[in-house]
Every structure is written in C-alpha cells, then in structure tokens.
C-alpha cells in the first residue's frame, strides 16, 4: 500500500511537469495551429531564470578580516552577499526563497519571450506546411539550447530550494495513515503549484471576457474576426501565456532536478506524446493525459508490477510504457482521449 502511494506521488510529480508543458503546447496549437518544437526550450529557459537569479543573489562582497585566519594561516575572507548587505535579514530571506522569486520574475520574462517569438518568427509560418513549422521551431530549440550552453556550460547546476521545504516530510502522517511515507517536501510543493497554475489558466479562459473571446476564436477564428474582434492580437497574448506556463514550470522544476541545457529536449518528446494521447487541441485532455501517463510510468516501474509482468512472460515495459500507450491510442482512437471529432484526424 505504501509503495503504491509513493509511486502515485512520483507519478503526480512527473505528471505535473508533463501536464504544464502539454497545456502550453495545446494552447499554442489550439489557438494558432502551430506545432511548437521549441516549447521544451521555453521550459528550460524558465529553469535557467532560476539559475541566473541564484547566481546573481550569490554575488558577494569579500572583506578580508585580519583578526582571523583560516586553516591555512591566510587572513580569513568574509563573504557577504550584496543583497544581505543592502536589505539585512530580508536579503537573507530573498536568497533562501530564490526559486519562488524566480517563478514570479519568469512570468513577465517568458511572456515577453513568447510574444517576441510569435511576432518575430512563428507569424511567418501560418501559411506554410506543418512540416516547415516543425522544422523552424526545431531549429529555434537548438539555437536557444546552445545559447544557454554558451552562458552556463554543459554541466547541471543546482539551485537550492527554500530551507523550509528542503527535507522530506511524512505524507503518511499528514493523511492520517498508520504508516509513514517520506517524500521530498519541494516535490509536494511542485505538485500543488502545478495544480494551482493549471486551475488559474482554466479559470482565466473560463471566467474572463478575454478567455471567452479566445475560446470562441479557437472554435471559429473567422467568425470572431468578422465580429470586429482583433483575434490575432489575443492569440499572440495566448502564445505569451503558454510560454509563461512553460517558464513557470521550468523555474519551479529547478528545485526538483538540477537544470541542464538539454532538459528541454528531454521533456519535449514526452510532452508531445502527452498532447497526442490527450487529444490535439483539447486542454483538459492534455492535463488529464499528463497526469495519467506520469502515474502509469511510475506504477510500471514498481517491483511488484514488474514481477507480475515478468511472470506472464513479457519483458519489462516500464521504460517504454508511455510510448506504448501513445501508439495504441493513436491507432485505436486517433483523435486522442478527449479530442474533438474531426480535429487532426487524418
């Protein structure tokens, strides 16, 4: 039981990253009809916003204290980060909470990057074949990834999470169970955060006038345009929102795994699979499929299930279950789990 619950948490954890990236991909595809191969790169840039911020926070003033010596006998150097010097204990708090601050910062940065991307590049590709859109965004993904590599090197860089969430917590006790499950606190925060962001995006689309117009535009772009609404401008903003969601996910993820320049590509393939399984263009589908595949992947890697599969003579499938599910879904139900009939069914 506790093993299953632990894998469920692992699955939610993975799934929330998939769901956030897939949501952005779907938003872009649903509004602009563009397949964005650079979306993984946006996720990666989000993570590197956190890295940059933590590097900036660490810039310290070095004072040589002649009264003390270090173990080599040299005068001891005392480092004080500038933020601490300027803001006192509030500065310390800022260093501790680098990632949450980076998350806030990444919203405007990513919206800006998203809007520039749409206006500067994607706009040129609306009337060209899908293959060209894939190719140019694939090229962009390479360029963004390489730029990050030039600035930050090819090693993974760790960003520390706030001290309050650094250790593991006992989930079992929290849920009132009679056994204990220890799970890293930051991953729990990550799951909760993803759910909040997902909820916020859905609420934005559902309950604001802007969101209503966007949904109407997704349903029938031409008619909305004929009503005198500048739908292109709104779609551009939605591209920014999608980029921001990926960036937020990335900035938070910096505390889960060390950011590295190729993390975007690693997530990209899986996110595409998630979008396809959920149904191209369906937002709830993307989210549901994200969590579903995350949990499936976690459960398939359980020893219990591995043994069960081995006992009926099949090889272990935990490495490939996501792809297997995707292939089956595409063949049996091409529109995806929650896709609308007639959308991309060819």
């Amino acid at each position, binding site marked *: 039981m506790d093993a299953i619950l632990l894998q469920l948490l692992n699955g939610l954890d993975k799934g929330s990253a998939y769901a956030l990236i897939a949501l952005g991909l779907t938003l872009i595809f649903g509004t602009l009809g563009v397949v964005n191969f650079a979306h993984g790169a946006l996720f990666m840039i989000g993570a590197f916003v956190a890295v940059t911020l933590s590097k900036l926070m660490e810039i310290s003033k070095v004072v040589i204290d002649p009264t003390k010596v270090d173990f080599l006998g040299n005068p001891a150097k005392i480092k004080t980060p500038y933020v601490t010097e300027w803001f006192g204990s509030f500065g310390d708090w800022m260093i501790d909470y680098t990632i949450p601050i980076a998350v806030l910062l990444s919203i405007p940065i990513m919206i800006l990057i998203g809007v520039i991307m749409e206006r500067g590049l994607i706009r040129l590709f609306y009337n060209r074949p899908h*293959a*060209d859109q894939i190719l140019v965004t694939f*090229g962009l993904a390479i360029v963004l990834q390489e730029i990050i590599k030039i600035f930050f090197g090819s090693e993974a860089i760790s960003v520390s999470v706030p001290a309050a969430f650094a250790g593991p917590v006992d989930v079992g006790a929290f849920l009132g169970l009679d056994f204990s499950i220890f799970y890293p606190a930051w991953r729990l925060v990550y799951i909760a955060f993803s759910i909040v962001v997902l909820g916020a995006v859905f609420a934005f689309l559902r309950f604001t006038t802007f969101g209503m117009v966007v949904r109407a535009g997704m349903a029938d772009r031409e008619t909305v345009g004929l009503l005198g609404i500048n739908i292109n401008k709104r779609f551009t903003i939605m591209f920014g929102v999608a980029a921001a969601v990926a960036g937020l996910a990335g900035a938070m993820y910096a505390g889960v795994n060390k950011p590295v320049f190729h993390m975007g590509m690693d997530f990209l393939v899986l996110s595409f699979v998630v979008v396809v399984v959920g149904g191209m263009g369906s937002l709830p589908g993307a989210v549901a499929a994200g969590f579903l595949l995350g949990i499936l992947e976690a459960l398939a890697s359980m020893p219990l299930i591995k043994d069960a599969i081995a006992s009926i003579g099949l090889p272990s499938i935990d490495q490939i279950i996501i792809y297997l599910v995707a292939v089956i879904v*595409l063949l049996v139900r091409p529109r995806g789990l929650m896709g609308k009939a007639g959308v991309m069914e060819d």
Partner: protein
Amino acid sequence: MKDRLTLLLFAAVVLAAPLLFAPTGAAYPDLLQRFAIYGIFAIGFNILFGLTGYLSFGHAAFLGVGSYAAMWMFKLLTMNIIPALLLSVIVAGLFSLLIGYVSLRRSGIYFSILTLAFAQMSYNLAYSVLTPLTNGETGLQLRLDDPRILDGASEAGTLPSTNLFGFDMKEVFWNPNILGYDLQFNWGYYVCAVLLILSFWISIRIFRSPFGLMLRAIKTNQTRLNYTGVNSRPYTLAAFVISGMFAGLAGGLLATMDPLAGAERMQWTVGGEVVLMVVLGGSGTLIGPVLGAVFIRYFNSVLSQINEQTLHGWFSFGPDWLTNGLVVIVEPFVGKGWELTLGALFMIVVIFLPGGLVDGARRIGRTLTGANRRAAKAEAA
C-alpha cells in the same frame, strides 16, 4: 542523358574526393568516410521526406539497428563486411516495415510524433530490456572470444579488423604527395564511396520512375490522389522502407568503420540531424542531401576545432581592440558552439530558402543568366 551526366560527374567527384578535399583540410580517411556514410543516410531520408513530404524524426532507430546487426555479424560470422552490410540492410528494412506500417496510418504532425515516439522507444529498449542483444550502456563491442565461425582463429591477443575479402578497411593503400598535400587513399573510403555512388544512382532511378512520380503526387495533394482511386499507403510504405534500408546501410557502414555500436546512435537527436542535412542541402533534389551531409559533417569537424588562439591568429590584422572584439563576437559560434551556428543557419534556410542550398544556388544562377527576367517577360506576354 542529363541524368547520366550528373551521375558521371557525381562519381568522378566522389572518387577523387581524397584529392579534391585536400586543400580544405578535410581529406583524412575518417572524415571522408563519414561524408559518404551520412550522404547515404541523407539520400535515403530524402526519398521519404523529399518526395512524399512525410517528415520522420525516427530514422536514427534504423541507423542504430543497422549498426547492431553489422556488429553481430562481425561477432558471430566473419569480419568480412559483406554479410554484415547485407544483414544490416535486411534487419533495418524489416524494422522499418514494422514501424512504417504503424506510423503511416497517420499523416502530417501525427506521423512526425509517432516516428519520434518510436525512435525514443527503441532507444530506451536498447538501453534496458534488450541489453542481451545491445549490451546496454557499454555498447556492443568486438571481443577476443567471439566465435567468428568463418574466420578461424585470429592472432592471439589482437582484435581483428574489418575487411573486404582481405582488404583491410583501415589500410591506406596509396599515400602519394601531390602538390605538397599528403594524400591518403584507403579501402574503407572507397567501399563507402562505391556504395554512395550506387545509392545516388538508385535515387536517380526512383526520382525518374512512375513510382517516384506517385510519391510526388502524394506530397502535392494526397486527398486528390485518394479521390482518383489510388491507395497511397503502399507507396508511402515502400518509400519508408527504402529510406529505412538506406539508414540501415549507413548504420552498418558506421560499424565497419569503427566496430562498436551504442544506443546513443538511436537517439532522436541523431534522427533530427539527418533532417537538418536534407533540409539544409535541399529536400526533394538529387544532390541536395549529399551536399547537406557533407556541409554539416565538414563544419562539425572543422568549426568545432577552432579555438580562441586560432581566432586571434585570423584577426591579427587590425589593432588590438578590433581583434579582441571580433574574437569575442565570433567565438560563441565556433568550437563547442558550432551547433549554435548550425541551428541558426538551419533557421535562416527554413525561413528564407525553403529549397535549401541547391535552391539558393539555382536562384543565383538564374539571376546571373537573366532567366528570371525572361520568365517574367514571358508571363507578362
């Protein structure tokens, strides 16, 4: 007639490559061999993408499978490359038949994503479940205690090298000094070169055949083709399998060059690289893919070797501040950053020159000969 001329010209250039590439510093056998191998890979990919427009991101899987198949032949049967190459083509063909049958039930974006998923799946399989076949992370390597039934006992303590009926693939058979360049002609390159010319010939035949015409019709308007009563799937499947077999051949050749096969050859980014080659060179053209492959491989080896000192040497003509400024600007694009150049160049080509380098050359040629103006005049009249 024109095709025969193209083929002859192509063959002449390929066979004389060790001489022709000497001034560019790329004339060492290893790199030339890679040119030819990736040329074959790209030619095959072009038959699928260039003709039918189906964009596959999964061709790395066939390359990897070809390498593994060749390695097993080296381990079990003989170090002669013929059985190895035959098996790698056959296995890759069967594998692509399987994947193509499933993937081609969808088109457009779905097809791309399906092939992507399959490539990643094969990569993960090679790493985990299929370890007995692929030797997992270490990769498949030659060992002294491999059976090699046909070869008999090898010299004690040394690993045998790949050969073609006794001609050692690595052996340099002619080492002349022409015009001050130290040239190296080796068997390995000529095996690859002959296969490259053969592949090019096959590609010309397919381009000019009714089959090729049908593939082009699929790219132009598949719906209309279906309405005329043609079932397009057998044609796309055939194109897919042919391109898979080319990829398998390329994978097998990579193993003959350096007898080891690892799973990283199956990663989808390798499949992405062949997409870059074909698009950069010019998809749907005969010579474009080869040009793209040579271009990318050449810059991969040359640009990535440039470091700060080389740059300082190049820009030493001006005052110090100019030299340093130029070095700072150029440095991110060379050495370890050459992939940035590649990505940027690729984007520029996709945006402004969808026909690739070949199309660019054609446009320049047309401007120079004034054919554009004549065409415009003809249209106006």
